[in-house]
């Protein structure tokens, strides 16, 4: 079931005018911000499908930038997000893509600074609910509603077991887990949705494991 909570239906509390094109967009932007783990210096945002056709009228642009600034769906500052980003000297560019996406409300965000960059693709599936379907070229499915960790690792035996052992040691329950890779034996990505927020120590322990390249955390 895509919708699990009654508050997916009665909610979210948000700044208008569109739950999918405003609130959902803000949430996609905020996931990008959380995964990047700091304020980016620049962001390229591509809109597809209905997003590309109607983003100006729905405030999708201000919402997604609001999310990148770590604003929640009901944060009044969303309305002035472009101005706030400009003052912070964050360079933002938008593109209206012609390509027909799998889902009508699709956005691709690339954020970066001098130390690195991150690219994700998010879809807004209705009522403010979103899914992240791609991260740095990896296919995945992440609702953004539960705390989660994303672990970039080398595709070697034992890597997954080591991570789940650490979670078990800290008594953290895994709600959903997915592993994807581009090529056998190369870089792979673990997506783990968990039931509670993760302490820094857990992240540090996972980062210290062999064959682990990067660990990012999404808090609820």
């Amino acid at each position, binding site marked *: 079931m*895509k919708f699990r909570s*009654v508050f997916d*239906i*009665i909610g979210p509390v948000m700044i*208008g*005018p569109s739950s999918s094109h405003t609130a959902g967009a803000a949430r996609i932007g905020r996931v990008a911000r959380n995964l990047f783990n700091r304020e980016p210096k620049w962001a390229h945002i591509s809109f597809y*499908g209905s997003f590309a056709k109607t983003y100006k*009228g729905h405030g999708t642009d201000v919402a997604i930038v609001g999310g990148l600034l770590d604003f929640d769906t009901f944060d009044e500052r969303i309305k002035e997000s472009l101005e706030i980003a400009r003052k912070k000297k964050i360079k933002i560019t938008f593109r209206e893509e012609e390509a027909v996406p799998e889902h009508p409300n699709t956005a691709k965000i690339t954020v970066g600074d001098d130390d690195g960059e991150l690219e994700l693709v998010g879809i807004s599936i*209705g009522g403010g609910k979103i899914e992240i379907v791609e991260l740095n070229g990896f296919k995945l499915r992440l609702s953004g509603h539960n705390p989660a960790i994303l672990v970039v690792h080398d595709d070697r035996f034992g890597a997954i077991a080591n991570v789940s052992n650490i979670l078990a040691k800290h008594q953290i329950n895994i709600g959903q887990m997915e592993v994807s890779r581009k090529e056998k034996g190369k870089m792979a990505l673990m997506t783990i949705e968990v039931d509670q927020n993760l302490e820094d120590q857990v992240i540090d322990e996972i980062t210290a494991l062999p064959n682990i390249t990067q660990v990012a955390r999404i808090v609820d």
Partner: protein
Amino acid sequence: MFRNVAELVELADSKQKKISALMIEQEMEVTGKSREQIIYQMGVNLDVMEQAVEKGLQGVRSVSGLTGGDAVLLQNYIKSGNSLSGEMLLDAVSKAVATNEVNAAMGTICATPTAGSAGVVPGTLFALQNKLKPSREEKIEFLFTAGAFGFVVANNASISGAAGGCQAEVGSASGMAAAAIVEMAGGTPAQSAEAMAITLKNMLGLVCDPVAGLVEVPCVKRNAMGAANAMVAADMALAGITSRIPCDEVIDAMYKIGQTMPSALRETAQGGLAATPTGRELEAKIFGIPLNKK
């Protein structure tokens, strides 16, 4: 966990519980939160809805200037005492309009189930206040009942205009409201399901064709009629009228209609009212783009 309306009604009958109670129990099970936490959170949503209605009734205007002020006109008309379709019905309509006018003005609202359809459920809820005199708890229950029916639609069909047209947004909202009205008025769970079916049947095929892509025209007035539709369907169900097509099959029909709806009529501002000469003219004016460039 209930997967469809038939299971929901059966569960309510066998446990002798209201649909709102079942929704609260399921939410506790799924999220692990306490009853108090869940009811508190819904109370916060209720407060947001009430504030949006109040704000809209004072008169707001959207940035584009396309919408705003109609809720006030309707309230004044009700006060004149000359209304034809009845005060409570028009009160629901005006409060639905108020909410969506606030939404269009980038104000704070609670999506029910979406922002574009956020007026119907609160519009009907706050219009029932004078007659049914619900307590705060009962108003919160109204939202859980509406949520239960919306939950079924969202999981078996869609609540997104881009995916299923306006029938999936205002259609779903109206069905949710009708079912909740029935419960608040003392009807049975089965009557709630009939009300939802009757409402949604009258919304089938409704396209999502917002002028200039803005959640304004025709969205505000579709919420108005969605509220009216919900009120009338609830009365019909309470009178004992049933839908020949069961609620779940109506939901399924809505889903299939949405799938066959062309993209131009699913929130792309390419067809329907958005593509009328006036729609195009408004779009050009709002965005400052010459008409021949569209």
